[in-house]
């Protein structure tokens, strides 16, 4: 059995347990229940599961160097855009990476971007959430290619992720610092960051609309030239 599968089972187990515990008010574990803690634990486990997936994939120095360098570029790209609030060029580059190099590379570049850029911007409880959110951006971008979608869809996808990214980021704050945890408070908590998320979404749309195809063709050219591909490996 692959290690990532064990982790996946663990995530499911913890998740189910957390929903089950409140049903038994007599159980002392209720005192420990904090959804912020639960969410963070699950997020970290999910990231580690992806890391094991990357380990199991047939990667050599080429893929490692490529993922590392794309992660570094995407972290550094935050610099020239720091002057424009809310705009996150990383998201667009991660989408293009996932689109061209597949889900494993997409996830890794996304996760690395968050982890590495926070060495410079500051680590915090948000780091795992950013890693997962950007990682998932990379993973989902693969489906754009699978369904053969054009620039228009790329832009729509970018806009959607502008908001979804914000939602994932808000989960920690909502679960840890807001009471009661109902759909109503969830929505309002999400609305509170809507301004920021809109900037992110607009930025993504412009990036993908203006140089999405360009970036994808650069990455494609590179992939073709060096035959670089991340294939899922045999079960370890």
């Amino acid at each position, binding site marked *: 059995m692959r290690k990532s599968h064990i982790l996946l089972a663990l995530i499911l187990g913890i998740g189910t347990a957390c929903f089950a515990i409140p049903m038994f008010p007599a159980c002392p574990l209720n005192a420990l229940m904090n959804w912020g803690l639960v969410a963070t634990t699950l997020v970290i486990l999910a990231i580690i599961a992806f890391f094991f997936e990357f380990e199991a994939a047939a990667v050599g120095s*080429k893929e490692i160097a490529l993922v590392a360098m794309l992660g570094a570029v995407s972290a550094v790209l935050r610099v020239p855009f720091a002057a424009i609030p809310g705009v996150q060029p990383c998201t667009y580059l991660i989408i293009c990476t996932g689109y061209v190099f597949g889900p494993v590379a997409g996830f890794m570049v996304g996760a690395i971007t968050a982890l590495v850029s926070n060495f410079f911007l500051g680590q915090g409880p948000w780091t795992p959430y950013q890693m997962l959110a950007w990682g998932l951006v990379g993973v989902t971008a693969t489906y754009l290619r699978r369904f053969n979608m054009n620039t228009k869809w790329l832009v729509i996808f970018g806009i959607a992720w502008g908001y979804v990214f914000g939602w994932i980021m808000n989960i920690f704050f909502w679960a840890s610092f807001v009471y009661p945890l109902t759909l109503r408070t969830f929505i309002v908590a999400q609305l509170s960051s809507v301004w920021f998320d809109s900037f992110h979404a607009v930025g993504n749309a412009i990036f993908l609309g203006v140089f999405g195809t*360009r970036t994808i063709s650069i990455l494609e050219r590179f992939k073709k*030239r060096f*035959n670089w591909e991340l294939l899922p490996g045999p079960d370890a």
Partner: protein
Amino acid sequence: MIRIENLTFRYTGAEKPALRDVNLEVGDGEFVLITGPSGGGKSSLCRCLNGLIPHFYGGKIGGRVEVQGLNVMRHSTKELATRVGMIFQDPENQLVAMDVERQIAFGLENIASPRDLIARRIEESLDTLGIADLRRRPVQELSGGEKQKIVIASVLALHPDILVLDEPTSELDPKGAEEVLGTIERLNDELGITVILIEHRLDRVVHLVDRLVILHEGRVAVDGTPRQVLADEKITRIGVGIPPIIRLVQGMRSGGINMDKTPLTVKEGRSMLESVFQNAKRATLRETKTLNGNPIMNMDRLWYAYANGVTALKNISLTIREGEFVAVMGRNASGKTTLVKHINGLLKPTKGTVNVAGIDTREATIAELAREVGFVFQNPNDHLFADTVEEEIAFTLKNLGFKGAEIALRIDEILERFNLVPHRHQYPRALSGGEKQRVALASVIAARPRILILDEPTRGMEYKLKNELMGFLDEYRNQGNAVVLVTHDVETVAEHADRVILLSEGKVVVDNIKREVLSKALLFSPQINRLVQAFEKYGVRGDILTADEALEIVT
């Protein structure tokens, strides 16, 4: 022992093979220098020696390569790494760790060496290269030369029998290059490691090597001892950058002077050429043009301090005139680049003024100044981003506010001038190194700036391309524009510049015509000048700078 038999290799997707029918044998402990024009197959040949070709780069391969008895087709790069150490151009891209010890340990960790062995090898490598003092420094703070030495240490830790170095000094300044080459020589001499070195600047190494191989169009064109090879007339035709002293001797031979031996160093030249210079004529030298064009750039008591408080320029006043070819020289961190960045407004003076074509740079944007001042940076890759060569050139023109018809006209003209017409619709980044350099230059010159600045454009550049570039610059200067060249390359300055500004620690030390600055200067004298100084006792002028000038008085 390296044995290469009938090696032919073609990269996937390439039209022509990179290597054709190469036969070469290198014995243990030999020091072999490989050179030749770019595209000749030097790098490909190196990459065959540790199996990067064919394991890393796909392609069609024929023939046989055997290293220390191992056939590289059957053994992985990983297996070969303990026999063949590879060092590449840019040290930056060979450092995988953030600290020195872990960088050196990386190779040994990969072959699962035990920790005590790694510790011992780290000590050994640091001591062999004399860089033990660097071990605690973070790598990004080190100079290029220091970084390259750490790369060599990390390769050496695997105890290879053979070192292959692919232009290890092309990204380094002269001091760093000198140190790295000295280290390589010592490794060969004292430890008996076989060395295969690719290098363009023959004058730095030719006297150290046992053997010189010229690769041209994928074939071994000439192979022998340096003296044999350099006496061969073929190499001039191929376009190898021959050291000036050898060019002088070749000139003498074709001028009818009988020279049986070829000197490789200035020292050898002094004894071998003494009799020739004893009878030299007292010719007058063609003087460089007097500096009397209209001033177009004026710096007045310029001071500049960086945000961190370091004062980079101190009280600099100078004028640049139309039709002048100025070289800015000086050690690393002497303020050369800081100085020229003031001319196009990338930096604004902390104190004092810079005036370009009547504009005070403090009151103009970089874009406004760009019409008057063109700036070409060292790496053409930093310039190129457009889809086609044409768009690349149009980008500058559009930025500077030129309109449709004018843009089209200028593009046609500039493509013609730089022989880029066939590449008009091609992707600039896919062109060859020389072509990229031309596109970068063309994209700047298209605006017809009156001052053209180049920051170390010739670093790591091979002879032919350098000649081509300098040809363009001479022509541009002759059209009445000023050319400012920041460089370490003394020979190029001796050939092309009119005037030299020498900086040290942010101050102008000398600012005069080149003959005054370059003759009898210890560090900044060209090879020929160092030679003729020995013959001043025979009445030879001590301010001769180039091989052509020296030839004039002896033939």
